[in-house]
C-alpha cells in the first residue's frame, strides 16, 4: 500500500463561520490577508517536503474562489515540489479538465513536471465538484463529456511522437498539436480518476487501466465502487498498474486525547459552509437525483458526512485517528472492509491544525504506522512491466 500526504491548503483565518453564509464561490477576498496567505503557502509546501523526507508521497488538488483551498493552480505547487523534493511520487488529483479551456495546456504542464521530477508524476483528471462550475463557467450539464473528451485528447497528445495532428471535438478544436516536451514516463504517466457514485464512469476508468480514487465515503459504498472497479479493470500498460485509492481524514498522535482533539480539528473540512445554489447547479447530477432533491431527499454529495459524530465517522472509515497502533488497526480494518485498496490518501491537515501538530502526526504515521501497512498486498494484478521490475 502506498501512503500519500494531503492537505487542501485551507485558509482558515476567517470570521466565525456562523456569521458567513458561504466559504465558497462568493466569499469576498477582503477576508483574505495576503501576508497570512504567504505564510500558509510556504508552510503547506514545507509539509509536503517533510512528507517526502519521511517516505510519503505527495497529493495535490485545486479549487477556486474558496477559503477551503487556496491551491488554485495545482500544476504550480506540483512544479515547486518536482524541484524541491527527490523521492516521493507527486499526484495532482486532479486537473479539472472539464473546467479548463485548453486540455493541451494541461498536457504540456504535466509533461514538463514529469520531466523536472524525473518521472515521479501521476496525473489525475477530475470532473470538478459542483461549485467549481461557477468559477470556471462550465456548463454544468456537460462536465462528464468534457472530462472524457479532455482525457482522450491529452492522452493522444502525450503519445503522438511523429509530428502534429488536428483535433475537432465537441468542446475543443486545436490544430497542429505537437507536444514538446513529451512526458518522461512511457507511454505516459499513470492517470487517476475520481468518483463518488457513477459506477459507469468508474468502470470506464478501470477498463482503461486508470487508478480510481474516492474520498470520505462510508466503507460500504467504497466497497461497492471498488468492486465495480475491480470487475472492469484492464491492464493497459500504464505505469503503476492501476489500482484503487481512498481518502480518509487521518490523525496520528502520542495519546488518545491528542488524537481526538486532532480528529476534531480535521472535521473543519466537513463543516465547510456553502450556499445551496452552489451545491447542486442544474444538470450537474442526473434528473433522477434532482427529482429526489425536489422531494427533499437529496441535499448534495457531502451532506451524508456533515454534522456526524467523530465516533460515527471513525466507524465508517471516514475519520482515522489514534495512537500509531490504533491507526494501523483502523487502516487494516478498512482495507478488509472494502476488499483491499492500493493507495491511502491521507488528509492529515485541515482547518486550524497547526504546523507543529500536523508534522508530529505525519512523522508518527511515517515511522510507526506505515511500516505496519506498507506491505498490505496490491488488490489488482500488476501489469506485466511493473511486475517484472
Amino acid at each position: 500500500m502506498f501512503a500519500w500526504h494531503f492537505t487542501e491548503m485551507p485558509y482558515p483565518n476567517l470570521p466565525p463561520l456562523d456569521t458567513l453564509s458561504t466559504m465558497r464561490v462568493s466569499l469576498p477576498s477582503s477576508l483574505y490577508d495576503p501576508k497570512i496567505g504567504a505564510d500558509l503557502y510556504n508552510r503547506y509546501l514545507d509539509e509536503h517536503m517533510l512528507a517526502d523526507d519521511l517516505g510519503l508521497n505527495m497529493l495535490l488538488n485545486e479549487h477556486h474562489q474558496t477559503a477551503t483551498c487556496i491551491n488554485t493552480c495545482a500544476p504550480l505547487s506540483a512544479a515547486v515540489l518536482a524541484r524541491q523534493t527527490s523521492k516521493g511520487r507527486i499526484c495532482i488529483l486532479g486537473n479539472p479538465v472539464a473546467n479548463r479551456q485548453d486540455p493541451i495546456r494541461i498536457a504540456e504542464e504535466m509533461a514538463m513536471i514529469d520531466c523536472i521530477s524525473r518521472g515521479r508524476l501521476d496525473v489525475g483528471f477530475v470532473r470538478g465538484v459542483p461549485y467549481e462550475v461557477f468559477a470556471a463557467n462550465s456548463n454544468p450539464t456537460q462536465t462528464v463529456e468534457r472530462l472524457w473528451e479532455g482525457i482522450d485528447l491529452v492522452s493522444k497528445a502525450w503519445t503522438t511522437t511523429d509530428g502534429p495532428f488536428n483535433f475537432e471535438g465537441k468542446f475543443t478544436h486545436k490544430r497542429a498539436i505537437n507536444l514538446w516536451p513529451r512526458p518522461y514516463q512511457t507511454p505516459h504517466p499513470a492517470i487517476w480518476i475520481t468518483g463518488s457514485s457513477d459506477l459507469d464512469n468508474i468502470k470506464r476508468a478501470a477498463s482503461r487501466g486508470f487508478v480510481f480514487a474516492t474520498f470520505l465515503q462510508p466503507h460500504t459504498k467504497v466497497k461497492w465502487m471498488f468492486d465495480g472497479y475491480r470487475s472492469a479493470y484492464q491492464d493497459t500498460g500504464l505505469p503503476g498498474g492501476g489500482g484503487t485509492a481512498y481518502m480518509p481524514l487521518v490523525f496520528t498522535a502520542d495519546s488518545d486525547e491528542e488524537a481526538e482533539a486532532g480528529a476534531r480539528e480535521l472535521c473543519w473540512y466537513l463543516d465547510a459552509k456553502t450556499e445551496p445554489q452552489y451545491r447542486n447547479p442544474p444538470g450537474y447530477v442526473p434528473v433522477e437525483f434532482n427529482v429526489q432533491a425536489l422531494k427533499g431527499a437529496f441535499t448534495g454529495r457531502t451532506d451524508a458526512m456533515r454534522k456526524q459524530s467523530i465516533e460515527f465517522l471513525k466507524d465508517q472509515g471516514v475519520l482515522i485517528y489514534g495512537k500509531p497502533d490504533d491507526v494501523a488497526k483502523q487502516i487494516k480494518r478498512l482495507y478488509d472492509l472494502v476488499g483491499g485498496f492500493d493507495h491511502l490518501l491521507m488528509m492529515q491537515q485541515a482547518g486550524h491544525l497547526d504546523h507543529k501538530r500536523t508534522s508530529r502526526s505525519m512523522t508518527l504515521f511515517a515511522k510507526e504506522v506505515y511500516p505496519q501497512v506498507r506491505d498490505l498486498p496490491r488488490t489488482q494484478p500488476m501489469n506485466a512491466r511493473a511486475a517484472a521490475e
Partner: protein
Amino acid sequence: MTVTERIGNVVNVQGIDIEVKTLGSGAPIFLLQGEEQLEEGSAFVADLARTHQVIMPSPPGFGKSGRPDWMTNPDDLAYVMLDLAGILGLNGAPLVGCSLGGWIAAEMATKDDSRFSHIVLIDPYGVKVGGPFDVDIQDLWIQHPQKVAAMKWFDQEKSKRDFGAMSDDELTVVARNMESFARFCWEPYMHNPKLKHRLHRIQTPTLVLWGEQDGVASAAYGKAYAGLIPGAKFATIAEAAHYPQIEQPEAVLKALRAFIA
C-alpha cells in the same frame, strides 16, 4: 378539430419527438411557455382557451420533448419550433412567447416570420444591450434561491410550488426543465450575441410586454429590446415581475387581445 385531435400530442420533427399540448378551440395561437412551463396550468391560458385554440409545444429538452445531444442554444430550438409550425400548417396565427419562450419566439421571427400574424413577447431573454460589465439579466444560478424568487415574483406567495404533492413523473419534468434551461442558456448567459443584429428582420407587428417590477431583467432592458424590433410596441404590466402572465393574467390578456384583434 384541434391540432392534437388531428395529429396527436407528440409530433416527430426531424427525428425529435416534440410534445404538443392544446387547449380550447377556435383560431390557433402558438404559445411558447417560459422555462418553468407554469403557463399550461394557469388562469392566463385557461382564459385564452375560451376564445382560441392554444397550441403549446415543449421545445427540445422541455416537458416530454426529446433533446438531441447536438443542441446547445435557443437558436437551435427556434429551428425545431419553426419546423413544427410548418408541420402543423399554421398560417396567420399569433406567436406568443414568455421568458425563454419569448427568446425562442424572437429567434424564430428573425428566421421566418411569414407564418405569424402577430408576435407577442412577454419578458423575453435573448439580447445583450449593455457592455461587458453591465448586468442586463440577473444571474439566476449564482444567487440564493430566495433572492431569485424575489427577482422573479412581485408576489412571492405565487412562487411557491408544492413539490411534495407532485408525482415522480411531474417532478421529472420540473427537474428536466431546470436542467435544459441551463444546458441552453448557461453561456453566453441568457443571450445570443447574434440576435441583436438580426431582430431588424422582423416584419410582423410585434408587442413586447414587461412586468413593471421584473427584477431579473428591468423594464428599461425590455424597452431597449423592443427598440431593436422595427415598429414594436412596448407596454408594462403593473404589479408583476418576470411572469406578468401568471401574476396579472387579466391585464396581460387585455393587452394581448387588443393587439391581435
